[in-house]
């Protein structure tokens, strides 16, 4: 179940009036005084956050990679992983490929349009790179019940974890009365 939609936006979408064009913003990375370079991971993190902000995006990556990603993300204490996000970054431009799990019954074209727009807006405004392409692969659907279960399960797990730590702390022999 893979629905891939892609668009090339040379203009960077409908820029708000009064804002500098992406080309000008890109130019700000190459100044007379020196060059600013942006690493891939920076673009990937910004794009991942922008995509996750959109309603109708259950998670990035498919359900399996999403689960693994959040597991590893948690292990590494990484708040904003870049699971499901690939980027190519040049001196002035960037392209983003991302895969996601959509929320049922959201309209996939609408969700992917919103994701694309949000990713373009964020990446362009924060990094100054012109986003020339955002390719989106919808790898899976999540149903409302699943999400609740998963979220609840995660919360319960964290709660148990905290409780256990509390108990361990209380049982430390150093606590004398």
């Amino acid at each position, binding site marked *: 179940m893979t629905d891939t939609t892609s668009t090339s936006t040379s203009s960077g979408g409908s820029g708000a009036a009064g804002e500098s064009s992406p080309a000008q913003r890109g130019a700000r990375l190459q100044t007379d005084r*020196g060059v600013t370079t942006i*690493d891939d991971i*920076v673009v990937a*993190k910004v794009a991942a956050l922008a995509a996750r902000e959109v309603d109708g995006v259950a998670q990035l990556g498919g359900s399996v990679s999403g689960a693994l990603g959040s597991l590893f993300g948690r292990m590494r204490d990484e708040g904003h992983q870049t699971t499901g996000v690939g980027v190519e970054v040049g001196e002035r431009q960037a392209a983003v490929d991302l895969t996601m799990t959509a929320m049922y019954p959201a309209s996939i074209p609408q969700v992917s349009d919103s994701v694309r727009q949000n990713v373009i807006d964020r990446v362009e405004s924060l*990094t100054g790179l012109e986003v020339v392409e955002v390719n989106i692969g919808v790898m899976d659907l999540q149903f409302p019940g699943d999400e609740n279960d998963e979220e609840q399960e995660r919360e319960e797990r964290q709660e148990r974890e905290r409780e256990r730590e509390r108990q361990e702390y209380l049982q430390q022999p150093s606590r004398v009365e």
Partner: protein
Amino acid sequence: MSSSPGASPVQLAGQVGERALALTGVLELDGGVLGEFSTYGNGQRVRGVLVRIGAAPRVTVRLIAALGEPLPALAEQLRDRVEDVLPGARIDVAITDVRRQAAERPSTGGPS
């Protein structure tokens, strides 16, 4: 702390690093996994800052920025701050990562 003409690269790098870290959007200087992006000298080294003096003076700063900070503007602020350390130098800025600023602070001085 003005730049004396005879200052060594490592002294200049130290000044650049200090001024870079004073910017709120700059969380850390990034010397690379092995600390390979550093300026050495006098038994000390400055991670994340490369200073080359000579005919084409050049400063390179590698840094980890706060998430949400517009990066081209941050780089310009940095250039404004450090340009008089080594006048006429080209100042290249590499943003190697972004992190949430809030998530950085609690780890320091945790009671445990």
